[in-house]
């Protein structure tokens, strides 16, 4: 019988999950190593935890296979850098599932970014960070501010000067 881990969300709901599913979170894996099977996650709401568990359940089957040589080389290469490169999802069906998974509004997406980052689920972090980046691409500053709730603390003159300065720097690509 598969070993079960109990996760408790911030609003008190409890979720029992198979160990291999929960262990995609490095944080949970570390906590359980200290012999604790009930893991409170006060900063993660039920809604977000349900989504994260769904992702982990889907990806648990893929991750149960040993790392291929290319991805362990990648892990070695990235150990000295701040960027973590998890193996890109090669299975097209899984990739398609991932693309559906991230069809969320920005607010929900941001919640998952925070949760995945906190729980240290490498592949989910890469997926959602790249998704956020995709939503920045091709947009001008004003639109980015609106979509991502960034406060504009420039004076109009500062903003104009900045726009001119920055467009010069990267015009000749």
């Amino acid at each position, binding site marked *: 019988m598969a070993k079960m881990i*109990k996760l408790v969300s*911030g*609003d*008190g*709901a*409890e*979720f*029992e*999950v198979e160990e291999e599913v929960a262990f995609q979170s490095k944080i949970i894996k570390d906590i359980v190593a200290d012999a604790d099977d009930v893991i409170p996650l*006060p*900063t993660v*709401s039920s809604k977000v935890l*349900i*989504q994260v*568990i*769904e992702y982990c*359940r889907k990806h648990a089957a893929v991750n149960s296979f040993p790392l291929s040589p290319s991805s362990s080389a990648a892990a070695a*290469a*990235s150990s*000295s*850098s*701040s*960027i973590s*490169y998890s193996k890109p999802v090669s299975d097209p069906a899984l990739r398609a599932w991932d693309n559906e998974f991230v069809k969320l509004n*920005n*607010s929900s997406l*941001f*919640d998952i*970014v*925070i949760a995945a*980052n906190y729980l240290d689920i490498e592949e989910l*972090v890469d997926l959602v*960070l*790249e998704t*956020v*980046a*995709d939503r*920045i*691409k*091709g*947009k*001008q*500053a004003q639109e*980015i*501010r609106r979509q*991502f*709730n*960034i*406060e*504009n*603390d*420039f004076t109009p003159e500062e*903003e104009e000067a*900045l*726009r001119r300065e*920055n*467009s010069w*720097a*990267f015009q000749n*690509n």
Partner: protein
Amino acid sequence: MTIPIFVVRSVTLVPRAMASSNSTLAMSFSDFPEDVQINILSFLSPSEVSAFACTSRRFVALCGAAAPNSPLWLAICERRWGFRTRPRSWVSSSASFARLYKALDRWEHLIGFWRRIGHGGPGTPHLVFFEWGPSYIAGSRVSPAPDAAGGGYGVLKVPFLWLGLSQHGELVSFLHPGGRLDSSADLLGSVSDSSSSSSGVADPDLVPVSVSFMGCSHFVVEENRSYFADAREVDSIGVLEEIETSSPPDRLMSEIYQYFAIRTSPGGDKAMRRPRKKERERSGGRHLWEAEHFVKINKYYPTPERPLQGLWKGFSEDMILEFYLVSYDDIGGITCRRVGEAGEQFSGYSPVFWTSNTTFLESPFSSDEQDLYANREQICPVNADGRKSSDSSGVVSRILCINSSYDLVIPGLSASSGDPRNVEGRIWEYDDGTFGFGFLRNNYIIDLKHIAVNEFLLDIVEDL
């Protein structure tokens, strides 16, 4: 969203202890921890980063290209090139990583195979291969290894050109006209020992050069005559101080730059100075080295649609290992040319065969075709004990007709230039994807093998 299959044992409702996710206050990008922000922004291109920079004061600071040690620009370089090189090793601690990005973005085009065109020193190989080093890009001349080394198919790879960044973030490139450094192995491996890199640096034959692109597929390497003049303007005292502190061993390029700066500064450390005579020669009017032009070999490996395409090596009828380049053109034809040594006919790029009909003959083959193949001898390297080392490639899967004539044929002229069978030939494609070719005028088969796979040269032999 599917219904998750887990058991909810008990749902005890407790008062909301969380302060976050208040429904009236939407979450902002600014609320992310900085490392998360950097990771997200590292997916963007420079123009997208500059758009993002304009959103708020905080992000102008984060995205600024001029700032030294920008964690964002380092992350962008790592994400794009971290697999192939060590971006952090290219620059000193005070450098601008945005400048590093521009340098890597520009020089990335060099990676791969190039063919030297025009004149060159006698015996200089035509084929050149560029690859990533830990803190530089290295170009090597590739030639068939002499004396059947490496099982006969060995190639010599001799580094001759290095490109990197100086202490001050400027592009620098150096060439070794003799073709070889004593510590070339150290240069191309991970330089973890400062003593080995400094012995490579103390080489008086290094020539500073400039690498100029003329479009994406053509570049020129020229001696940089103004290099020493520029170096003299560097504050000699400042440079001396840098030399005396220990520098990270794998910043090879900055050490080379420092070495040249010391050599030409009036107050340079005596221990590092070369004889004065050489310096006068350098800054005199003489050219040490002629400019070289290179054009890109864009497709050096076959694809499913173009199975014969690429850079190959094989033994010619003269029992010499040669390099062959097979290209597909836009009008559905295939040509093969030999990539050879300098001073030869056609400037070392002589035609071998061509065909305009790329339809293969499939098995089963006619008895004529089978006879054509069966009575032939595959040209193989001979082992030391005199026996042929035949690793024959296997079963013929398909056949293609080729032609080796490059004469103009005027239809209707009664006097033909000879028996057409003299120039006709065949390609025999094997089931492992390689192929051999031969002509009706003799009974040889020239079997071809790949020169490189996945940006790695095969069968490299040490130059002893």
